[in-house]
């Protein structure tokens, strides 16, 4: 799994590539937590390169979303691939998380 973080004004774009499973999720959790603790609470996860996630990846997303919202921010998802979307739907996450077709729409959603 690869993680790349780009700052766009007040929004941190976290681009993830690869699989989020029991061996890789701790790294993603740590990076997202580091973003929040450094004051970047408006996050966009670009998941276009993520072909797989298990429940451990969902725990990462949910924990981060809760953490950002406590500080007035959010974690919003973009470019969600079909298999990852299926996992989000199975867990009912699509009703509590904001999903966007592309990164630009997700970033713009913070200024609307």
């Amino acid at each position, binding site marked *: 799994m690869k993680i790349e973080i780009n700052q766009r004004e007040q929004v941190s774009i976290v681009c993830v590539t690869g699989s989020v499973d*029991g*061996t890789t999720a701790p790294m993603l959790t740590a990076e997202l937590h580091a973003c929040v603790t450094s004051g970047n609470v408006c996050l966009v996860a670009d998941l276009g390169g993520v072909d*797989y996630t*298990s429940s451990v990846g969902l725990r990462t997303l*949910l924990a981060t979303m809760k953490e950002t919202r406590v500080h007035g921010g959010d974690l919003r998802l973009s470019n969600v691939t079909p298999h990852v979307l299926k996992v989000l739907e199975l867990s*009912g996450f699509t009703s509590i998380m904001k999903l966007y077709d592309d990164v630009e729409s997700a970033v713009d959603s913070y200024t609307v």
Partner: protein
Amino acid sequence: MTSLPPLTDGITFNAACMSDLPALMSMLERTCRQVGADEDALFSLRLAVEEVFTNILDYGYPGGTGPVAVHIDAQAEQVRVSFADAAPCFDPATVPTPRLDVPLEERQVGGWGWHFVRQAVDRVEWQPREAGGNLLTLVKLLAPVSLSQQGASPNEN
């Protein structure tokens, strides 16, 4: 380490900790592709196998380390994945389905593993082993593969 009984027909991967997951997933994918499993079936099997494997290590063994023999029997019609462990007896049928309609504030950070397993495969069979431990089997039915699809398979023998 407690020895586990040999299983017949198919391939067995003897795992012991979470760092064995990538090798297990590679074996699962390779074995299932050989019988023509499509991407959706592969994804479902991968999800179910990881959730079971993780649960055994996280909740079955103190410290997250212990013997888990994962046996894969892939046929054209179905894939059977069995897990034999030496952990305390645990029937996954006793795990309730999580509530999916609760607001964010009430969401628990976890608890979806067995829910995913039930959704991803067609059957979940469990029985305690006489010598102690559990034998859990997942069954995933595969969609029929047409002759033209078989001819296009890069893994055709």
